[in-house]
């Protein structure tokens, strides 16, 4: 039976990587513009639907359609910025919250209108089935999803830290006006932030679609977890979100297995409240 415990541990880490990937986009958008995107879960749902339709219409396995899904979500992110977000850049926090909340309901309504409410899933993919490593059985698609998450996080971290565009985005995050004085067009930076932020959740959606069902409200399952991960890791900190994602995944799975499955989400929330009361800006966030 000891295999069962390690197996739970492994699957906790794997799902933790996926949480991290979902949270990275959210923390990037917040880091740049102090806006919490309540509709983040719904973009995940849209990405999963795209991956599903690529499979059904063109027979493309989610791994092959991943680049397409990411590009589509990047465009969706940029469009969202120019239509909905730009008018409220300097609006009070409450208006920002309700625009993103409005987008949440809008995406859900459109999804229900176009693809109705049935549960859909990609039955057979390249990564179906499981593999056993040292006696632990692990779903291949979870492994691939975790690997994808790590790669994507790494890319984003590298992009922000060492490319010209990335550093410009960091600058705008630090101080909008100062960055503008340096000739950085903050408007384009924000569009880029939304594009990349939503693109990362697109990658997460593409990876998730190989082992998780999709229906118009699937976003809400992941949305709250993403918030907790971002707040735990510290708003605006990409590495923070990455570490916090793994921790949340572990806490959820282990508390579910060791204590009581129906209380697992409560432990995640208690962990979050505990950390935030001691360090309000989370692990690595700015004050």
């Amino acid at each position, binding site marked *: 039976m000891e295999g069962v415990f390690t197996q739970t541990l492994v699957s906790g880490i794997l*799902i933790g990587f996926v949480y991290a990937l979902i949270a990275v986009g959210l923390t990037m958008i917040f880091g740049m513009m102090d806006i919490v995107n309540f509709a983040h879960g719904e973009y995940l749902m849209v990405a999963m639907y795209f991956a599903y339709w690529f499979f059904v219409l063109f027979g493309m396995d989610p791994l092959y359609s991943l680049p397409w899904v990411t590009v589509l979500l990047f465009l969706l992110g940029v469009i969202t910025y120019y239509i909905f977000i730009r008018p409220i850049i300097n609006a009070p926090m409450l208006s920002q919250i309700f625009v993103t909340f409005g987008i949440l309901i809008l995406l859900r309504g459109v999804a229900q209108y176009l693809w109705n409410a049935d*549960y859909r899933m990609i039955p057979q993919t390249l990564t179906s089935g499981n593999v056993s490593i040292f006696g632990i059985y*692990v*779903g291949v698609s979870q492994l691939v999803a975790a690997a994808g998450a790590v790669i994507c996080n790494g890319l984003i971290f590298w992009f922000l830290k060492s490319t010209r565009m990335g550093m410009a985005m960091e600058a705008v995050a630090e101080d909008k006006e100062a960055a503008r004085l340096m000739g950085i067009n903050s408007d384009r930076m924000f569009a880029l932030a939304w594009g990349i932020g939503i693109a990362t959740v697109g990658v997460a959606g593409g990876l998730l679609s190989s082992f998780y069902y999709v229906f118009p409200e699937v976003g809400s399952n992941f949305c709250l977890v993403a918030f907790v991960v971002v707040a735990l890791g510290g708003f605006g900190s990409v590495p923070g979100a990455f570490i916090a994602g793994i921790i949340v995944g572990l806490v959820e799975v282990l508390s579910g297995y060791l204590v009581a499955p129906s209380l697992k989400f409560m432990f995640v929330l208690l962990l979050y409240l505990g950390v935030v009361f001691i360090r309000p800006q989370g692990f690595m966030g700015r004050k």
Partner: protein
Amino acid sequence: MWKILRVFFVAVMVLSFTSLAYAQNEIRIGVIFPLTGPLATTGQGLLKGAELAADIINNKYNLNMPLAKTSGLPNLKGAKIKIIPGDHQGKPEVGMAEAERLITQEKVVAIIGCYNSAVTATAAQAAERYGIPFLNDSSSSPSLTERGFKWFFRTTPHDDMFSENFFIFLNDLKKKKKITVGSIALLYENTLFGADSRKYQEMYAKKYGYEIRGAVPYPAKSTQLTSEIQKLRSYNPSIIMQTSYTADAILSMKTYKEVNFAPTALIANNAGFNDPDLIKSLGRDADYILSREVWAKDLSKKKPMIKTVADMFERKAGKPMSGDYARSFTGMIVLADAINRAKSTEPAKIQKALLETNIKADQLIMPWDGVKFDPKTHQNVLGKGIIVQIQKGEYCTVWPFNVATKDVIWPFPKWESRK
């Protein structure tokens, strides 16, 4: 900009205070299901089932079913059934509000609904208050018929009987098929539906002398069920009895395969496991699941009428018929038959006619012995459950053995032994 919004606002207020005019000779029946929200896909199917029944009643079809051969209700000068849909979104207070709206504003003569047991409870209460017959076609929580309501009738058997069926089935397996049956563990969604099922499963396990190693509740809409299934595995049971709606049914099957856990048998309490989406999503991984059911297409070998109705439903709804949709279909037939016999839409007369209902087994698409309501609890006493097994992507009846079309495949094959 603000001109438009103000106009829109005024329109909203006016619209909400007008009551609708309606045609004369039609029998208005309210149908309340979860048309939006997490159970929208089931709700839409239930509505299509009721609509198919209304269509058969309103037009001539040669089916050995009450009111099929005639168009409309003959005793009421051929009046047509008109379905007024209501969406309760899975919320008890919305169910109550919809029931009141249909009764007071839409002037319905009777109501069918609500699938979610908690919503049926409040909606039935509203109908009781206004003295309007409420026919419950698909809620399985036993408490609904224990509240002594005068206007509440239920055609479908409830969990009390379904749970007992599981253990009669296990006993039959032991006696007739000489299969050894080991210990049991329960996995159920932490909602009214799941909690009720667990209570009865534990009660009957004790009564029939089966050992329940443990019961694992899980929160609805989980992002992953690994910890639950691993905890289940730690009890190392031979049989798993599961109660889940569609989303978690799919996720749990995927997780069983992932962690390579295959019990000797997986017995499900209907709901998610009988949703056509399950087979569509899981493909061959759904094979060998045993589930309690009230209807199965392969029963048409003994009753061809079932196949014709099932095909009509598939054409109409775009997805195969399932136990739930068959029950909403049957609910409408039973109600229409009662109204026809009552020769009036007057509530008290419909109630009396419902109490005298005695539809024969061969007139139903269900494997029941007929429809007859217990005078005190108004529960259909002739209801029966069957057990189906998914074999090669199809639901096949495997119990009771006299009705079964396929033999039970036992035990549940290991994941790697499947192709």
